[in-house]
Structure formats: C-alpha cells, structure tokens
C-alpha cells in the first residue's frame, strides 16, 4: 500500500508491503543513515525519530508509520554544519567504524533534549541499548557530556542583566531538526 511520510522535512509517498519494516523502506529510499546491525531491536543502529520519539526503525512496520514525521541522522546536521552532538562525537574521537553512530547520535540528541545536564550514569543509561563494538563506550559517553555542555553554553546566554535568552545551538533550529521545514 501507499503510505505518506515526511522524512527529514520532505513529504513523500512510498510503497510499503504489510511485512516491510520502516528501516528497509527508509533505506530503499536512500536514507542510508538508518543502519541495520541486527535482525530486529537488539543493536540500536536503526534508531530514528518518529514523531519526535526515538524508535528502532527495524522493529516498526512501515505501514504503522503512515502519516508520521521521521527524522534520520541526516536531518540533524550537514558535514559543514554539524549538530553539536555530531560535532562532539567528531571532536572526542568517539567514532571508529561509525556503523553504530547514527543510532547513537539520535539517542544522544533525544537524551539532551529531555535532560540537558545529564550525569555520566544517565548518559550510559540512555545509550544502554546502542551496541558499539569499537569504542568501549568511553569516548561516546565523553562526547555526549561534552555536547551537553556545548548546548547548554549555546542555549543559555545571560543577557540583559541576567535574564536568559535561548538561542539555537547551531543553524538547525532545535535538536529535533527544523520541525519539518528543512530540505535535508
């Protein structure tokens, strides 16, 4: 059947069989930032935002996503203008083979969205179902803590006698991309 999706801000109609999972459908349409490291739900590599919630795209029927808004890692930042989380992963050498990284970045963004000042323990808990074989989690955890600090620094600018104003962490309006307007 045809389903309607808004993927990284772009509305599209795609065909999906009843057995097709969302990861497969997204990948077939070129969204290769959705990785498949397992056969369902145990590695976290396929994480995307579906209507703002983190979901493992491999574990969700594509037809159930009909009408939703999806953001993959590609929506967060571009190579020349990385999201602060992506930038922190790069700057902290938290990326090795990179296969798990899209899912990790999505999860980290979701964490910092709801908890801008996490403890190390909270970061580890957030990443608990993201399997990474390369890094031992040490540098990814450091990267997320670093990103949190950067984002707090960027978001909270004391101006005007101590009143905080919020500015966006980078060109992307919020951590959840642009709410549907960008053309990434």
């Amino acid at each position, binding site marked *: 059947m045809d389903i309607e999706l808004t993927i990284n801000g772009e509305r599209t109609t795609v065909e999906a069989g009843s057995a097709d999972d969302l990861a497969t459908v997204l990948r*077939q349409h070129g969204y290769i930032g959705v990785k498949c490291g397992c056969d369902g739900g145990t590695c976290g590599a396929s994480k995307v935002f579906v209507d703002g919630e983190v979901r493992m795209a491999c574990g969700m029927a594509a037809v159930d996503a009909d009408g939703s808004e999806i953001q993959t*890692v590609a929506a967060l930042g571009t190579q020349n203008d990385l999201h602060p989380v*992506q930038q922190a992963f790069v700057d902290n050498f*938290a990326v090795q*083979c990179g296969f798990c990284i899209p899912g990790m970045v999505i999860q980290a963004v979701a964490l910092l969205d709801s908890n801008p000042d996490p403890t190390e323990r909270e970061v*580890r808990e957030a990443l608990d179902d993201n399997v990474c074989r390369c*890094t031992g989690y040490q*540098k990814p955890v450091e990267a997320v803590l670093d990103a949190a600090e950067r984002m707090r620094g960027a978001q909270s600018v004391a101006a005007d006698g101590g009143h905080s104003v919020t500015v966006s962490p980078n060109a992307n309006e919020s951590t959840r991309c642009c709410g549907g307007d960008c053309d990434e």
Partner: protein
Amino acid sequence: MSSDDEAPTADGGTASQSEAVEDRRSEEHPLEWDEPENNDKAPDERDSVSHRTEKYDDRKLVTGQAKYTADYEERYPDLAYAAVVRSDIPHGRVTDIDTSDAEAMDGVDAVLTPESDAVPDGKYTSAGQSYPEPSPWDMHVLNKHVRYIGDPIAAVAAEDRTTATAAVEAIEVSYEEYDYVTDPEAAFDENAPQLFEDVEVENEIVGHDYDRNRMAHIGGELGDVAAALDGETHVHETEWETIRQSHANVEKHTSLAYTNEDDRHVLITSTQVPNHTRRQLAHLFDIPIRDIRVQKPRVGGGFGGKQAMVVEPIPLALSLATDRPVLYEASREEEFYAMRSRHPMKVKAKTAVTDEGDIVAIDIYALSNTGAYGSHGMTVAGNVGSKPLPLYSKVPNARFEADIVHTNTPQTGAMRGYGAPQGTLALEGHLDEVARDLGLDPIEFRRRHHMEVGDLDEIAGMMGGEGANRRIRSCGLDECIERGKDAIGYDDLEQPDEDHLHRGIGMALSAQGTGVAGDELGAAQIMMNEDGSFHLQVGGVDIGTGADTAFLQIAAEVLGCDEDDIIVKSADTDVTPFDYGAYASSTTYISGMAVKKAAEDAKARILHWGSKLLEEPVEELETGDGTVYSEASGDSVTLEDIGYEAAYGGDEREHILGKGTHCTEESPPPFAAQFADVTVDETTGEFEVQKLVVAVDCGVAINPGMAEGQIEGANHMSYEMAVSDGITLDDEGRAEIADFDEYGLPSATETPPIESILVETHEPTGPFGAKSVAEVPTNTVPPALSNAVRDAVGVRIREMPITADKIKTQLDERNS
C-alpha cells in the same frame, strides 16, 4: 618525553640485560638501527603526526552519509539477494537436496547446490593470509559432508530478502548422520568420531594427525625446560580456560558481486583483506586475478572476523549463475553460529622459580579448539606462546607447545589479539599466583623479569617462522607500570566500610607484535594534482580504526601540506597498490611506512621543481605549510605553484608521482600494563569492577585521539572476554545465541570506566617512531581481573568468564 631517551647506548648501557640473554645473533639484530633521516622528529617539530587530527571520514560517518557495502544496494536496480541453507546437524553427509519448491517460487532466480556448475568444488581455506597459505585447505563453498551446525549446503538468489529467506526455508535436505564430537579433549581420543580423512585436506599443516582430529601440532624450546623443572626450585602449574568469543562487528558480513561492463568480476565487500580475497577467489573460481576487482567501502568493524573470505564466494557464484548483481548480508544469527569466533582454549602454564624468586623456566601448553575447519588454527595457536612469552625474554629456558583439534562446532578464526589473549591470561595469571605463593609483590616480581630495551628476544624466534629472533629497541613497560599504578591508585587503596566487601587490584602485562616479521608487504602511491593537492592511493585497509587518517597524517608530515589537501583512496584492487591487508597490527607500521616512502618520493620531485622556481639548490630546501621554502634565503613557493608549473609549465613537464613499498623483517612489540580495580562481596561472590586502567607503549602515537579510542575499544573487548559467556553451545554444538541481547556484550552501563594512558617511546623501525596499538590492550583484562579478585578475596578464577557463582563456590570451598 620518551622513556627511550635514556635508551641504552652502544657502549652497553644494557650490559646487565644482555648478559641474561645469550647474544648470538647481534649482527643480524643490531641494537643501533639505521633509521631513515627525519624519522625521529621531536614533539615540537611535528606538524601533523602525533596530533589529534580530525578523523578523515568522521563527518560522513556522523551524518550517516558514509557508504558501507549494503549501502550500495540502490546503485543496482537489478540487485538480487542471497540466502544460505545451512546444516542443522553437527556431522553427516547430505544425501539429497530437494530444491523444487524453492525453484518454483515467484521471485527466486537461482538455487545452487554443491553440484551446480557455478559452484566451485575445489578446496580452500577461508583464512585471508599471505601465500603460501599457512592454513589447511579443508573447506568447500557448499558442502556435502557437513561438519557443524551452520555448514553451508545450498544458496539462493531472489528478488528480495524475504523471498530469499522463504526459499531457503522451502529447501529440504536429507542426511546420513554421523557421530559427532564437540569437546576438544574427547576429539583427541583415537575412538572419537573423525572429521577429516587425510585425502579430504590439501595444504596440510605440520603435526596433523586426522585420525585423532588433530589439525596441527606445533612447538618450540629454548634451553632445556625439562632439566630446569627438575632442578631444586619451586615448580608451579596452573590451567586456564577461555571463552568462544564473537567478533560481534555491528556491520554484518556483507558482500555484493557483479560482472561489470568490461567482463570483470567486481566484489564490493566488507573485508580486511582485499588482495588476499582476490587471490583466493581467483584460485577457487579459476578466474585470472586480473579479472577480479575487490573494493572495500567503509567497513563496520572487522576485528579479525573479516580477515577471512567468509561470504564472498556465495554472491560471486550466484551472480555468475544469474547474470545479476547479488548481495549477501549474513543475518545476525548467522554471525553468531556460522561466521567466525575466537578459538576457545585450555592453556597450561608451568614455571620453575628459585628461592630468590628468579624464573628459570616457563612451559606453556595450549589445546585449541579450531572447530570444524582449520582456518587460522595453527597461526593463532602459535601466538599463544610467541606473543606473551617474550615479555619474560630473559628467562633462560622456555617451551611452548600446542595442539589444534577439530570438533563439530562452529568455525573459529582470526580475532583481535590472535591467540595472545589466551596466552596472556595463562601467563599473567600464573605468574601472579607464583609471586603471591612466594610472598612476593606481584608487580615487583614482574618488574624484575620483564623485557627491556636491548634484549635479544629469542623466545619470539624459538618456533621459527613468523617470530624470528628480534632486538628490542623500544620498550616503555616501566613507565606503563608506573603510570598505571598511579592512575588506579595502587599505593593508597582504601577498603570499603562494609566488612563483607573487599577491594583488590590486579595487574597484567602484555606484549604483541607489529606486523608479521618477514611476511608483510604494503605499497602506496601519491600523485600531485595541478592545484598542489594530492591523491594518496594505498592498499592499506581502514576497517574503522582510522588508518586512512593515520596515512594522511604521515603523508602530510612529509609533504609539508595540510591534511585536508590530501584525498585518500584505500583498498580497491583495481586502483590501489598491493597490500597484505589489515591484520597483525600491521597497518600503520607497514602500510604507513609505504605511505611515508611514497610521500618522500613525491617530495623529491617537489623539491626539484621548487629548486627550479626558487633558483636555489635542492639541499637548501624543505617543505612546510603548503610551500617549499629555503632556510637560507627565506624565499618560498607554494605547492600550488609547483603543481601548476609541473603540469603546465616548462619543457620538462611531469606528473609528480611518488611510490613506496615496504616489507620488513621486524615485528617490534608494543607493550601494555593493565590494572583492574574490583570490589568483591564475600557473602555472595558478586563483584563490581570500579575501573580499568591500561597504559600502552605504542611508540609514537600517530594520532593520540584515535590511539586512545583503539585502546579503550580493545580493552572493552578484553573485558567482555573476562566477564561474558561468549557463544555458548548446546550438546550438539549448536550456538545458543541468536542476537545481541542473548550474546551479552557488556553495554554502556555494564562497562566500567576505561582509562587509557599513552606512554610514548620511539620505535626506530616504524614510521615516525610508531608501532602498533590496536591489539595489545585486547589481551589483559582477563588476567588482571582474575588477579584483582585474588587480591580482594584470595580465591583464584582460572576459567573464564569470571562470575559471582564461581567466586562464591570457591569461597565456600575454602571456608568449609
């Protein structure tokens, strides 16, 4: 600063050490190494190497744009998908394969069985090693005689993955079942079921005895171990056991094959060994090497599991049969039961020690379970002895022996550490126990004996071949121990307030090699573009380690340009020069040296053009900051001008090209000192690892950020080997693991903090002083944690994994 700054001088600053080792081959292994000019750069002179340069592909990786093999799917609209029928009995002969239902299915393009024309019936080994191959040819692409639950029997290509899987399920296989054996000690018995007849194996290995399921027996001796063990000394013996560990690379084994417009067979494949894969496919399919192209895109982790031609023949056979591109991506379940794993082993360690605490003999024996096939079996077992034993190179008598035995269990193969983790557990656990029994401090005990600069390491050479005797020219073990002790807080350890909790610290040393001595080759070429930028083509393989970045840092250091001005193309056999591949910790050392030579070759031509343009002699000129400049006059010309001038100006136009090839007889060991801080609950045996610290001497770290990442990742893998069950099997040898949850890789919350410490030395045989880093920290957590538990509550766990139950049982036994 480097601890080797006080390195021994020729006058014998190391005399006391050399006395302990009979120095028969000093001429062949000089301490003073004829190091190329400009290889030893002081930290303040380094422009690119040993800087935390951003990883070359990171921006693509974090934005999800980098392409791994499966991501090429969209390029081939005609793509078919492969799936494989695998044996569900441990041992037997296939009597019939009924493919009729599968063939009748809509969307099925081809079903291949061992009888199909497109399927080669020759024997081979999946081990991706140099030629002549040191592994037996005992495998077929598809099998009639099946030897483990998971052996491939038939293969299918279909329009989509779902259809391919359904077709596999529709295929009926009938067997004649044989007796089977899964226990390596039982397999050794003369009456055990036999996996191979002699005639079923080509390229057999030394010491094979297929009547007793023995694939190989290897060994070597230095001095007279039996006599030393007989002497008036303390003789200790312990036995250790390790798990069947999975590589658990997050990207599954994936391979895409097609025949291109030039009638050449192309494989885009997730491999560590493109050149070996090309050679192996040529051998197997009887296709000229030149007609096969192996391209390595981004690789989502290998760890040795992809130093093997595991999946490639399947899509190639199917694409030949269907005339379509075919993609084969193993399932996660197949990863655990039908790809590769670390050899589970039992290792015995025996030492003779004098009353004064001098070790006079070390004797190690390993029984390695190679599973159904022999790939990497002999060489991995060899490293059980040849990697850790040299740590104690001053010991006058040493012996190592190993039996490598077939069982009807899943296939083993190369895995990060490559035998060293098994040997390091036995040796470092054993010596710790010896020291404690003798009432000596385990750390000081090791300090008295460990290897030092100047040592002639004959233990590495005692088995001949790979580990020829070598001279140790860089060794930072003392500093590794010192800094590790500080970081873990060894000297001011506080015990918990609760009486039933006890805290302990364990340490273990480790040595690896860097490349395979006498058996490596890397090559690279650099071309200069007319805008002054460069293309670096290198056979070296980046499987996620950051090798490409290390290559361009090395090239940039020589060329005096910005790293951004170099494009790296690595590992495409049509485009890049020959290379043995990413294994044996060789990439930065071997391929990196080839890159350095290529860059120096190009630099010579650049200086020539600089000399023309500046009208100054070449000897006055140097490269740096994107220019060629003259120290004498202060004049300079940009690389861009040189690129333009070389291409478009003057009569003697040339394309500036540099080439470099590197082989070596050397394999300098990197070193590590591991510390584990554990708290054990005496009432339950439960334990918590507070922290892991590992200090590593990898020479000069070409990129310290990446090196730390390698160390931490390796240590995590090592931690898993200490605390996880690995791939468990049922009585028939069937893997009980189907997904990551069942496998039990320590997750982010289950992993203790890992602190990595880089101890810089200078290895004169490596590019800018580098040796390897990625394997040595894979070896050390099992012994360090076993030692820490011993330190905390006095009991010794020798069988991995270390669990609360095992600790509790031992505590109960002791207390009763």
